[in-house]
């Protein structure tokens, strides 16, 4: 299945892009997605533990099972205000 991934804040600089498409096997989780992304973008690996992940507009944990068409967003800790 294909998963659209969007990067925000300095994750765009680390990856050199604002978005990408990853292909995962059915039943793949956010943890699986992070494994693929850190292999492709090693700079993200250093941020793995503090990376926040949303599917659509809601936060999800690493065990969340993704489905075709999910829009995943990855970003560093937020800093509003």
């Amino acid at each position, binding site marked *: 299945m294909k998963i659209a991934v969007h990067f925000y*804040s300095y994750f765009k600089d680390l990856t050199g892009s604002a978005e990408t498409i990853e292909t995962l096997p059915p039943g793949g989780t956010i*943890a699986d997605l992070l494994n693929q992304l850190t292999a492709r973008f090693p700079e993200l690996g250093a941020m793995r533990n503090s990376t926040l992940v949303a599917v659509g507009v809601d936060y999800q944990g690493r065990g969340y099972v993704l489905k075709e068409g999910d829009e995943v967003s990855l970003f560093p800790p937020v*800093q*509003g205000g």
Partner: protein
Amino acid sequence: MKCRSSRRCKADDRIHDLRFAVYDLCANVLRAPRFTRHPVVKRQLTITLEPIDEAALASKRKMSDGMGAVVYFAGVVRAIEENRAIHAIEYEAFQPMAEHQFNLLFSEMEKRWPIESVRLVHRIGVVQVNQPSLWVEVVAPHRGEAFAACEWLIDEMKRVVPIWKKPFV
């Protein structure tokens, strides 16, 4: 720190999820509501590229007769950020998610405090030093709940609302 093995990655991911769950527990249980009223709170949320006009916002304030407290807070861009002199901060938002997360927080405020209204304006784009980047107003019957709700909202915003800043030196 990079994961040194698949097992280590899985352990880190479980720890991450657990830490997130514990933080939510602390935020939602230990800071329990002191009131159980569920009024319909008037909400106004603006995420904007335009400067925040505090006088215009104040002039549009509406309060019913039973309200005795207005607390408002303005967050202003400092000239020093992480020990460096700066001249501005650029704010970036994942706007649909920011709006959704703000509305979840407003809904939680309804459950926790008997407030009448909340208005919040957050700048995006470049904000110069000494200019406000955030303006929050809470109207409630008494100062206690107004202060508590306003502070809680700002604390939670800094935890969950996807807005980031980039200082310009």
